[in-house]
């Protein structure tokens, strides 16, 4: 198992956002988190690379193991953890600098300074994110001047540039048009050969199309977790069935 969540509970002040969560994420697979708004799926995703540390009132019990190591343990270096688990956010968030500098920001953070090395990483990352052809002549242009769909793929490339093992995506296509969405879905399927992917999505079709396993969240609990094909064709729980057939949510 790449990531193992064991009996995890998460509180914001007195509100419990995640209740006794157990979950295994396998290597080189796409794991999707689905469920209605406020069910805790994004909260769990943000706990995996400890982005919840930024929320002052957040408190966590239980364990999250990454390659067998407790990520909330004393020996864990948060910056290294976040380098190993790249993250792509709901709204494309390129930095207000050039395309090139956006990609180079991560590697530079981790000590790569030589122009030749950076050039190579930038090209490789953009190619891996299937956006090199579109952007190769605009590397020096502001990243804010490209389209939303391109910005999101740029953000994926930026995450790839630090050579992560896992990519966490928080509703990465919810702000994009259908064509850009398709491009990103195709890209994720390609990327799973090299990376372990966890994606939060509002779009059940998307989970069904691209993920290997799906977890259905409701009110902070995982109601059902299993192979995507089985979960969508033969849901074991009545609540899962109601949600995926569109009876609520």
């Amino acid at each position, binding site marked *: 198992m790449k990531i193992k969540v064991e009996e995890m509970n998460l509180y914001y002040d007195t509100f419990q956002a995640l209740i006794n969560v157990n979950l295994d994420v396998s290597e080189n697979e796409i794991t999707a988190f689905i469920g209605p708004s406020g069910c805790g799926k994004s909260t769990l995703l943000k706990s995996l690379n400890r982005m919840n540390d930024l929320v*002052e009132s957040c408190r966590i019990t239980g364990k999250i193991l990454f390659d067998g190591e407790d990520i909330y343990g004393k020996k864990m270096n948060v910056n290294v953890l976040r380098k190993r688990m790249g993250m792509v956010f709901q709204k494309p968030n390129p930095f*207000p600098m050039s395309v090139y500098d956006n990609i180079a920001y*991560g590697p530079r953070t981790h000590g790569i300074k030589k122009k030749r090395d950076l050039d190579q990483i930038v090209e490789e990352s953009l190619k891996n994110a299937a956006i090199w052809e579109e952007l190769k002549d605009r590397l020096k242009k502001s990243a804010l001047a490209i389209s939303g769909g391109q910005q999101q793929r740029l953000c994926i490339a930026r995450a790839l540039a630090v050579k992560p093992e896992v990519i966490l995506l928080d509703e990465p296509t919810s702000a994009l048009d259908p064509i850009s969405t398709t491009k990103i879905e195709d890209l994720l399927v390609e990327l799973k050969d090299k990376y372990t992917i966890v994606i939060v999505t509002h779009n059940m079709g998307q989970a069904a199309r691209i993920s290997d396993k799906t977890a259905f969240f409701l009110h902070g609990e995982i109601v059902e977790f299993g192979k995507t094909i089985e979960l969508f064709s033969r849901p074991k729980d009545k609540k899962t069935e109601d949600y995926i057939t569109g009876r609520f949510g």
Partner: protein
Amino acid sequence: MPSRRNIVSFVLRYAVYAAMGVTALSLIGILGYILIHGILAFKPSLILGEYSSSNPAIGFSVFTTCVMIVLTLLIAAPLSIFCAVYLTEYAKRKNKIVTWIRLATETLAGIPSIVFGLFGAIFFGTVMRLGYSIMTGCLTVAIMLLPVIIRQTEEAIKSVPDMFREGSYGLGASKLRTVFRIVLPSAMPGILSAVILSMGRIIGETAALIFTLGTVAKFPTSLLDSSRSLAVHMYISTRDGGAAGREVAFFTGAVLIAVILLMNIGASYLGGKVGKDFEN
């Protein structure tokens, strides 16, 4: 017969025009009046010559003013920018110290400058034995500027979207790197405009400087010398110089306006360049 509505909109419209006209005329009037009187009083010896009672030259004062601007900003800008970074990025939300710093800066912002002058004269001048000097003046004005720059820098930093910070942390960047590479550059236009505004305050300050910088009319040779900034020179000339002094004051005023104009042009050029560098 025009309706009531038409009359109201007619009146409002011309009220707007009139307000604009009065404002523009008074601004242009003041500028023109000072410039014309200043230019009429101009003699080359007024800038290049040595100061004496027969030739109240202001070359030394232009120099002193420039030194004051640079030194004061060197003290005040880093201090207040770092303080603003602490308040917005590092301090916990319910931190007691923050509440106190906020209260203190807000109170300081409303205190008349002459009070700062008295404090500076006693603390820097007497207790720290700096006397009437450029150093005393700069330190005093720097303290006056702290609340102004802190508050505006805070606003600029707060307006940087959180998603930039998340993006940076998500790549494994430390807080320090996120603040200095992402947050501060994004906030730079706002910070620069705060610094430019405070330059104006340094140039315009008079009351606090009379007590701290002093009024000695000669070229300073060290930072511990007393001298006169342009604004102080204007005040002294008007007070002591009679009709001739008033002429010198007008000339000084014209020079002051020119200095401010140059500085604004320079700063906006610099600001444009910094913003652009970051975006491209």
